[in-house]
C-alpha cells in the first residue's frame, strides 16, 4: 500500500520507466498532430462562412481565437491552416527523404559517385534555404506543388550526409566482409545487412525535417511566393493579419502564430524522443 501512495504522490509519470515515458510523449504529441490534420480535413467550406454581423470579435468562449474582418472563426481557420501546413510538410519531407536515400546509396557505389554526391550536397548547402525555395517555387509556377518541391529540394542534404556516413561506417564492419566471403552479392548485402540499419536513421531524419519544412512553407507563403491567397494557409493568415495589427486586432496574428510554434515544437519533441529511443548514447551530443 505504501508503494502505491508513493507512486501517486510522485505523479503519473513516475510509475513509468524512461522508455515508457518517451513512448508516451511520442504517442500524445502524435495524437495532437493527427487530430489537427483529421479535423482540418473534415471541416468543410461551410464552417468558414462569412458572417459580417460578427466581424473582428476579440477572443471569447464562442470564438476562442476571435474572428476576422469577414466574421470567420479564427480557430477554425487556424486548424485548417495547420492541417495544410502539416500535410505539405509531410509531402516535402517524404520527397526529401527519398532523394536523400537515393543519393546516399549512390554515394556508396564508387569513388566518382561519392565525389559527385558530395559536390552536389555542397552546392545545395551554399545556397540559402529560403532563397532556394523561393526560386524553385517561382520556377514551378507557385502554389502547393511549387512550395512542396521547393522545400523538398532544399532539405535533403542533411539526411544524405547522415545516410552516406552511416553506410560508410557499416561497410567497414567485419560481418560485411564475412558476408561477401560467404558468397553474397552486393545487392544482397545492401538489402539484408545495410538497409535495416538505416531505417531508424531515415525515420528520424524525416521527422526532424518536418519542423523546418513547415516553417519554411509558412515563411515563403507569408512573403507571397508560396501558396495562393485562396488557400487557408497559416502564412496567408499571418500576412493578412499584418494589415489589421495597427487597428488593434492582435488575436489575428497571435493565436495562429502561437499554434504554428506549438506544432513545430511538437514535431521537434517527437524527433528528440525518437532519437533517444533509437540511440540513447547519441541523444546528448
Amino acid at each position: 500500500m505504501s508503494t502505491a501512495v508513493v507512486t501517486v504522490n510522485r505523479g503519473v509519470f513516475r510509475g513509468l520507466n524512461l522508455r515508457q515515458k518517451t513512448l508516451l510523449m511520442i504517442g500524445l504529441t502524435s495524437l495532437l498532430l493527427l487530430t489537427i490534420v483529421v479535423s482540418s480535413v473534415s471541416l468543410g467550406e461551410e464552417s468558414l462562412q462569412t458572417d459580417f454581423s460578427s466581424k473582428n470579435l476579440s477572443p471569447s468562449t464562442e470564438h476562442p481565437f476571435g474572428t476576422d474582418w469577414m466574421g470567420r472563426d479564427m480557430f477554425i481557420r487556424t486548424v485548417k491552416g495547420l492541417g495544410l501546413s502539416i500535410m505539405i510538410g509531410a509531402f516535402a519531407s517524404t520527397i526529401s527523404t527519398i532523394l536523400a536515400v537515393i543519393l546516399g546509396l549512390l554515394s556508396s557505389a564508387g569513388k566518382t559517385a561519392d565525389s559527385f554526391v558530395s559536390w552536389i550536397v555542397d552546392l545545395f548547402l551554399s545556397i540559402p534555404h529560403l532563397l532556394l525555395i523561393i526560386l524553385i517555387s517561382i520556377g514551378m509556377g507557385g502554389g502547393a506543388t511549387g512550395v512542396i518541391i521547393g522545400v523538398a529540394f532544399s532539405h535533403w542534404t542533411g539526411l544524405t550526409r547522415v545516410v552516406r556516413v552511416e553506410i560508410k561506417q557499416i561497410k567497414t564492419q567485419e560481418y560485411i566482409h564475412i558476408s561477401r566471403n560467404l558468397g553474397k552479392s552486393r545487392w544482397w548485402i545492401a538489402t539484408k545487412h545495410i538497409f535495416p540499419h538505416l531505417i531508424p536513421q531515415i525515420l528520424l531524419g524525416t521527422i526532424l525535417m518536418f519542423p523546418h519544412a513547415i516553417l519554411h512553407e509558412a515563411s515563403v507563403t507569408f512573403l507571397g511566393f508560396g501558396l495562393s491567397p485562396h488557400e487557408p494557409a497559416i502564412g496567408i493568415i499571418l500576412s493578412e493579419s499584418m494589415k489589421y495589427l495597427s487597428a488593434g486586432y492582435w488575436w489575428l496574428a497571435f493565436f495562429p502564430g502561437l499554434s504554428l510554434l506549438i506544432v513545430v515544437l511538437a514535431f521537434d519533441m517527437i524527433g528528440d524522443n525518437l532519437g533517444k529511443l533509437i540511440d540513447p548514447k547519441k541523444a546528448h551530443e
Partner: protein
Amino acid sequence: MCLKGENISFGYKRNNLILNNVNISVDRGEVLGLIGDSGSGKSTLCKILAGYENNHKGNVIIDGKKVPSKGYNPVQLVFQHPEKAVNPKWKMKDILNEGHIVPQDILDSFGIKKSWLNRWPNELSGGELQRFALARSLSPETKFLIADEITTMVDAITQAQIWNIVLDIVKELNIGVLVVSHEKNLINKLCDNVVYLDAINSVN
C-alpha cells in the same frame, strides 16, 4: 592443392610497409602455425589471404589460380572478436545459416544448443559466439581456414575443446588451416609446421 601468398607487400599508409615481399604457403590438410611479435602484421596477412584487404602487391593463389573476388571464398577467416563478426540485428539462426545450412551433427559437435538459435548476439558469451562463427565458416566449399587468435577469449579447457572439434572437422573435410596464436604451447600442440613472420617478412 595449396594456398599461396606470393610476394605480398602491404602498408596501411603509403610509405609505411608492414609486409614486404612475404611468401607463405599452406597445403590442404596441413595445420600451419604463424607466430610473430605483436604488431608485426599477422592479422594483416590473414586479412589479405582471406580477401578482406585488396590493396596489396603480390598474389593470393590457390592451385596456381587467383582466388575469384565474387562467389563463395574457399579461404574463410575467423578472428579474435566474434562479437564483431555478427550483425547485431540478426538472430543467431540467421547468422549461423548465412552461407549454408549448417548440418545438425556440426552443431552437436560444437555443443551449440537449440535454445541459442533464437537469441540475439548480445545474449551469448564470446566463446559461444565463436562456435557459431566457426560452424558458419566450415562449409563443404571451404578449402582453407585462417584462425586468427580464435580462442584468446576462453579458458584453457574450452580452448582445448574448441580446437579438438575444429581439428576433427578440418580433417574430415580436408581443409588446410593457418593458426595464429601468441601461445607457443597451443601452436606446438596443434601444428604440423610453424613459421615465424619476421623470418619471411623483409620489412625493416
